[in-house]
């Protein structure tokens, strides 16, 4: 009962999805203000999701029906698992199980994989272009992202569970305060921008070149599920960054302020950069970003 509650209501699906949709609204509103527009009302993203649930679901005739319909749900369920693990770890750090950092890292790839599988099974040329770009992008950002997590693990003396990492930061100060931690934080921030599929790394859904890219064939309920998955990602990734790098204490206001600061950084990066080509993004992640990540690992190893 307790497990179900934390999976479905708090801190799992219901709470996190609402928080993510609300964060999505902040994104839209701020983007609109930056462009001198007024922007949508606060309930806009909720209404969008509800509307999509009511709409007809079209399945492409030439595609593979099961893979097309099931893959968004797989990504969605794995994201709920991520937010539940994260939320429990923050609620009561002592209860988290050993190795949940690794589990979270794995589960965070599944939404992207689900998008790739769904897009390839829809048999649409635009979707396959989007899927291939998404695939390359995963190869690009996953290496620096894992390295940035390795920095955290090294700095917390090999602790692989979120609770222990949080506890250590509460006892000895946040990781972001050190040299290597700050570098790894910047690296991770760039990686989550790509994980969230936001500009400048949104080439898999580039609306102006390949229509909606990987999502081009989705409609109705599966599209709503994909949008919810994105909302969950928008909630989970900044929270993950906070719990890995930036915990002084666990009182709610400071966590919320930190969340908004990271969200603000993401939105500003999104609004001040043009979209990169996929080859530029690969060069960016495998060049400077990976270099920074390796540098921060080295710094962490020598104890800076």
């Amino acid at each position, binding site marked *: 009962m307790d497990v179900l509650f934390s999976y479905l209501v708090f801190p799992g699906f219901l709470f996190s999805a609402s928080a993510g949709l609300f964060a999505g609204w902040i994104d839209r509103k701020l983007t609109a203000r930056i462009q001198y527009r007024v*922007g949508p*009302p606060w309930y806009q993203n909720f209404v*969008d999701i509800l509307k999509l649930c*009511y709409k007809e679901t079209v399945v492409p005739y030439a595609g593979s029906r099961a893979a097309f319909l099931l893959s968004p749900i797989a990504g969605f369920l794995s994201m709920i698992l991520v937010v539940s693990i994260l939320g429990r770890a923050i609620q009561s750090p002592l209860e988290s199980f050993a190795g949940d950092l690794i589990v979270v890292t794995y589960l965070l790839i599944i939404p992207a994989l689900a998008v790739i599988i769904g897009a390839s099974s829809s048999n649409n040329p635009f979707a396959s272009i989007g899927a291939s770009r998404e695939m390359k992008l995963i190869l690009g950002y996953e290496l620096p992202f894992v390295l940035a997590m390795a920095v955290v693990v090294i700095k917390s003396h090999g602790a692989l569970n979120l609770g222990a990492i949080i506890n250590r930061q509460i006892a000895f100060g946040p990781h972001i305060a050190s040299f290597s931690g700050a570098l790894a934080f910047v690296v991770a921030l760039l990686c989550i921008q790509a994980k969230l599929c936001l500009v400048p790394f949104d080439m898999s859904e580039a609306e102006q070149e390949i229509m*909606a890219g990987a999502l*081009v064939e*989705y409609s109705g309920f599966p599209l709503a599920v994909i949008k919810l998955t994105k909302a969950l990602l928008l909630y989970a990734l900044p929270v993950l960054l906070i719990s890995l790098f930036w915990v002084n204490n666990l009182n709610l206001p400071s966590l919320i302020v930190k969340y908004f600061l990271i969200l603000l950084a993401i939105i500003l990066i999104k609004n001040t950069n043009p979209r990169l080509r996929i080859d530029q993004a690969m060069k960016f992640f495998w060049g400077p970003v990976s270099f920074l990540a390796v540098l921060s690992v080295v710094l962490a190893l020598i104890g800076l």
Partner: protein
Amino acid sequence: MSIKINILTKSLWAYHAATSPCNNCDIEILDVFTPRHDVERFGIVLAGSVRHADVLVVTGVPNFKTKERLKKLYAQAARPCFVVAVGGCACGRIMFRDSYNSPCAVDEVIPVDVYIPGCPPKPEAIIAGIVKLIDKIKGKK
């Protein structure tokens, strides 16, 4: 009024189908999304794919090629999908009525819900048309 319709009218995603217009109407449609008019206030956004669309915004006179495309687009859209004809061309073919490459008007290919005349219509007129569409969806006069 059912909650379903209420929700639908608060989040209309538009797909822009240009069936050989002169491009003026398209520019006016894009104007509607710019800071001055900003219809994202009402939840209206441009959708990249017709599968996501609630409203098909059609401009121009269909010719022999785009006629077929338009038919396909309408068939591909997820229901419920409404059609708005923007500009004199899409409403009634104006001076292209007797042209050799204009087989039919938009409403002879797909059912049109709202007509927005003008050559091109002003953004205000387009917004007024969308308001009419919303009233129509809600079943008001």
